[in-house]
């Protein structure tokens, strides 16, 4: 039976236009067999959550290098929950100080990938978490 591909939304919230990493990750995930939707830059939290809903994604990957992550990420996870998308895995990449990670995790971000992360690690992380989720659902 064909396994459903993991569907990932890669998005850049806020004003930050540095999209090199987001694009490299999007392509790596696609090469790893996932279905990737890349929103492009300048997405509001509302736009991202709407896209996540429309595209029925398993994962929302956010890329933020501007330092605005503490304003944007909790807002996004809040909106996802409001839309009943609690099950969606939220991961963040970019410039995220270590000190902010606990607060992000508390807000529902499950993975934080700072500078120097390999694409293999991101692929692995997503596969493992989605696999766990599928097992929990099946149980």
């Amino acid at each position, binding site marked *: 039976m064909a396994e459903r591909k993991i569907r990932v939304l890669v998005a850049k919230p*806020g*004003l*930050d*236009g*540095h*999209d*090199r990493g*987001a*694009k*490299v990750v*999007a*392509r*790596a995930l696609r090469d790893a067999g996932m279905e*990737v939707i*890349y*929103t*492009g*830059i300048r997405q509001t939290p509302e736009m991202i959550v709407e896209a996540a809903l429309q595209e029925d994604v398993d994962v929302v990957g956010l890329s933020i290098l*501007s*330092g*605005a992550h*503490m*304003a*944007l990420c909790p807002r996004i996870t809040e909106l996802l929950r409001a839309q009943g998308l609690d099950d969606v895995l939220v991961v963040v990449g970019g*410039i995220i*100080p*270590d000190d902010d990670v606990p607060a992000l995790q508390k807000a529902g971000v499950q993975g934080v990938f*700072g*500078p*120097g992360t*390999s*694409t*293999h690690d991101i692929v692995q992380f997503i596969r493992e978490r989605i696999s766990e989720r599928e097992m929990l659902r099946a149980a």
Partner: protein
Amino acid sequence: MPDSDKAHENPGDKTLFDQAAIQRIRSEVAAWEQSDVAQAQTRLSERRDEFITASSRPIKRLYTPADIAGLDHEADLGLPGRYPYTRGVQPTGYRGKLWTMRMFAGFGSAEETNARFKYLLSQGQTGLSIAFDMPTLYGYDSDAPQAIGEFGKCGVAISSLADMEVLLEGIPLDQVTTSMTINSPASIIWAMYIAAAEKRGIARARLGGTLQNDILKEYIAQKEFLFPPEPSVRLVVDTIEFGSREMPRWNTISISGYHIREAGSTAAQELAFTLADGFAYVEAALARGLDIDQFAPRLSFFFNAHNDFFEEIAKYRAARRIWARHMREKYGAKDPRSWMLRTHAQTAGATLTAQQPEINIVRVALQALAAVLGGTQSLHTNSMDEALALPSERAVTIALRTQQVIADESGVANTVDPLAGSYFVEALTDQMEQEANDYFRRIEAKGGVLPAIEDGFFQREIAESAFRYQQEIDRSERTIVGVNDYVSGEPPAIPILSMDPQGYERQVARLRRVRAERDNRAVTTCLARLSDAARDGRTNLMYPILEAVCAYATLGEITDVFREVFGEYEEPVYF
């Protein structure tokens, strides 16, 4: 002529090398490879199958005169300060004047950044460089909804002339040159700088500095575009025209490759795309009816200073030669100053690591050295903590001292273009020129830079290079010290810049005061005049912008006029 007795293959040969000698060298190298090298390989094979640059360019084991056999000293190299400027644009190089040590700075509110400017000047920097925050870069006032969470994080917030006045307080604008990294709203921020200076009695003609103002690279790489390409280029030509007329000491544009490289391009792409953008601006200004020698001397450039030492040096030298050749041969510029490529350089931000951040000091030193050996006019060196935050005072001091050590202790500034004649460097310089010319042909085949942007040509090239680079790292084909090798596993323990928590409130309070205290009818009139001028397509917008700015119209208000008249651009997405 003493050499006329030698056995040249072609009597009219203008090449530097005796071609018979070249032939002998070629044979010698071939024999050396078959015997000496082959033997060395049996004892000890080379560490890799291929040795590549940071751009994945394969580098040969050895370069000899045979690799630059056709070098014509007069046509290809020349002397410093002479066409084609391969060896630099000034005869005396750094012996006459060191590169400007110009540290990019800005964070939080105008007060904090003003203090950092004064600190840097007191520590020996010789020029100012202003970093603006995201909302400012996008033409949003600090209290706009789009600015939430973004205030002051990537640079200083400037929403009105009042902020600019605070930012520049106590800075001798008639003695210090200022570079401003601003693109879509460049005309507006420039107007604020000019207005602030004139309010202090300094005539605009005395102001020296640089406006980045390079909108084409925004579509290609940095993505800070606002309006569609056509009206955006119109704004750039307005600023070029204004500058040519009113501000002889000001570089109206900083045609940039830095961001293209940061987005992941190779060195050759950085070189080619930047120069192609430059030519596009030249053509746009010519189409406006400007005389090339009127504006070209004040076009300037901005290149990256990346990891691969020799590739970068070759890149700068090739850039000068290519620009000179095109400006003279293709565009018919007559004034030698129109042929001279002058550039700022910044060490590559994308190479900084969050892991073992002190090691970034080493990277920056090598990158800065390459920029100096490449003949840069102006240099910013990154701070070690910039993969994590904006520079702390301690980190930025080390970065500035790096330049000072290069200038005063290393000896490299004792002579002009010291690496000229290196078989390797000259061969690489030639190669990069050829690669750039190949790209120019491809861009031309697409109808020029604007059609190529619409087609996504640059963006796809960059995305390919960026992906390849990451793959090389992920596969450990490329080592990044501290990241995929020599890993220490310790979290970074360096102090990170913290900003004034009152900064935002102070900024918003000032903004509200400005809006309340100004003559709001005058502002409305100015904005209406600006809108008409923007629509008529014939007025140089710098004049109505200056009027609006002097009336304390805010950045957001002025940009909104343009958003309304020009529309907003949405980019096609490639990955």
